[in-house]
């Protein structure tokens, strides 16, 4: 890959998805894009660059699919899910009108492990608080990841990554060697294809946003832009869960830290 090709491709990736790549990721970028080169029968990376420059929509879709951040697992940073159940839900129950629906957004849901983990926590909470109504919306830029998420079928490897064994037995059915998430959980999550760089307001307002291990891939210009978008679609005093090591501090004035011991949980500051 020439330096010019790297500059063009990394700029395009940032423009399309917000993800920034430093030059030391050039080899990884090339390796991922070679699959696209092969799938379109191009002679090499230069053909791919030419097709992208011509604005070929199909190639562009394959380009963003190939470079989407897909790493995920069930109950990633399990403490976040405990805080959802033990801090966020009681807080929202206390501060929302009776009968109102608590809406949760999982932004960058990849193949579904995160929204289904949230759904499992919600399901357990609903068993103890049956009057509560919860809606979970999960968005991602990748059509192939959303298709996997909607299917809710996971390998033995997938279900061993982060999922407590009792949750597996309670919420999955094993069929033909694969683990299928049960219909009651599937019905709790609505999946939508949406780029975080696009307008998020048609999704409506939320009480909780989960966006974990994603904004770290954005540069310092885009991070505050995305965080402001989250603030726009959060209800007053709504909660934002980021990934471990991610923060809003120094990036936006729209959020405040909730408690020092949970450094990835933030609350929207009401105007």
């Amino acid at each position, binding site marked *: 890959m020439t330096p010019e090709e790297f500059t063009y491709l990394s700029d395009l990736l940032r423009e399309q998805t917000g993800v920034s790549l430093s030059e030391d990721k050039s080899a990884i970028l090339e390796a991922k894009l070679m699959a696209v080169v092969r799938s379109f029968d191009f002679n090499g990376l230069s053909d791919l660059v030419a097709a992208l420059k011509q604005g070929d929509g199909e190639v562009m879709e394959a380009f963003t699919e190939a470079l989407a951040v897909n790493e995920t*697992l069930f109950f990633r940073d*399990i403490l976040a899910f405990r805080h959802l159940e033990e801090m966020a839900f009681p807080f929202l129950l206390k501060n929302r009108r009776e009968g109102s629906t608590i809406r949760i957004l999982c932004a960058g849901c990849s193949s579904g492990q995160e929204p289904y983990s949230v759904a499992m926590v919600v399901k357990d909470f609903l068993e103890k608080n049956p009057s509560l109504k919860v809606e979970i919306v999960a968005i991602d830029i990748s059509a192939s990841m959303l298709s996997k998420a909607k299917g809710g079928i996971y390998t*033995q*490897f997938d279900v*061993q*990554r*982060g999922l*407590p*064994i*009792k949750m*597996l*037995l309670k919420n999955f*059915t*094993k069929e033909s060697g694969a683990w299928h998430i049960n219909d009651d959980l599937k019905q709790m999550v609505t999946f939508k294809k949406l780029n975080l760089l696009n307008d998020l307001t048609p999704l409506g307002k939320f009480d909780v946003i989960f966006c974990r291990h994603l904004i770290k891939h954005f540069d310092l210009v885009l991070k505050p832009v995305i965080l402001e978008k989250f603030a726009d679609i959060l209800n007053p005093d709504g909660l934002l869960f980021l990934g471990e090591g991610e923060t809003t501090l120094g990036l936006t004035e729209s959020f405040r830290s909730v408690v020092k011991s949970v450094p990835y949980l933030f609350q929207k500051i009401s105007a």
Partner: protein
Amino acid sequence: MKTFLVVEDSKIIRTIAARALQDMGFATIETGDGETALETCKKSLPDAVLLDWLLPKKDGFAFMAEFRKIPGAEDVPVIFCSSKTEPEDIQKALDAGADEYIMKPFDSEILKLKINLIELEPE
């Protein structure tokens, strides 16, 4: 430093698991059968056990039945580890007192994530 007892009759799996646990900062004791494992526990209780199901002399279930009777062992986390992957098999292990369950084959990342679930720190 916390000690993990690894009870596994396959020397390869036992060695790989023990090495992964050591890399995470645990001390390890290795045994290849349930009877020796039980004797080891009676002398000195480990902080956690990684336990194969099918074992010579005493299998994982026979081990569990006697292990939980050792004073202090009631709360020692046990991760069952087996190539049996049907839900009813897993339920049987949980009913016998397993805290977590690993389906073989597994890698060091899965082992680490399972240890996170039982909330055991190496120190």
